[in-house]
């Protein structure tokens, strides 16, 4: 059965995983460099750099093809995106509730686009790896 091409998500080749791992280590070097160059740097900026780079790293991993990209892996991937979004919504809801109970307001400076993207991509990655782990566990 042919799929509607507008809904098709082209996946990256497995080699892109190496670039994703670079994005996990790059902010460490960057932050050390920035701290040495500008010791008065805002600590929140460091957090944003970490969240941004890790979000990109997880994003690349989530959109990279497995060695055998068959229908089970595709169904795991779809489930992972759904579960990741679900976890993110409830996680953010929990953070807002805690913030409300402590500071009497639901909004806070920690809710940035970088943080939300990092959490979303991290949860998706976690949900995908968990499904693969469960299959591997039952296999052995």
């Amino acid at each position, binding site marked *: *059965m042919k799929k509607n091409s507008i809904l098709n998500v082209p996946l990256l080749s497995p080699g892109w995983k190496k670039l994703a791992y670079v994005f996990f280590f790059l902010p460490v070097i960057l932050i050390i460099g920035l701290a040495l160059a500008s010791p008065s740097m805002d600590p929140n900026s460091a957090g944003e750099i970490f969240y941004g780079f890790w979000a990109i790293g997880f994003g690349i991993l989530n959109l990279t093809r497995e060695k*055998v990209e*068959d*229908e*089970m*892996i595709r*169904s795991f991937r779809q489930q992972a995106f759904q579960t990741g979004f679900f976890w993110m919504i409830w996680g953010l809801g929990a953070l807002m509730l805690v913030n409300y109970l402590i500071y009497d307001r639901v909004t806070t400076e920690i809710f940035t686009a970088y943080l939300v993207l990092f959490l979303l991509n991290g949860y998706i990655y976690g949900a995908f790896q968990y499904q693969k782990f469960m*299959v*591997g566990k*039952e*296999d052995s």
Partner: protein
Amino acid sequence: MKNTIKVERAKKDLTQQDLAEKVQVSRQTINSIEAGKYVPSTVLALKIARVFGVGLEEVFSLEESD
């Protein structure tokens, strides 16, 4: 959904890897289907039945809970 893939494989003397290659999926996918952990698509179920040379309902059947 239950299946008789293991039995059919034994009849044809096929390993999970052999079957996986014939239907172009990973061995883990065949293992998960055999164990009832993953329900294959209609296309994959038909491919598996074709490898064994039997009808779809001889390989896959519904359970009470389905």
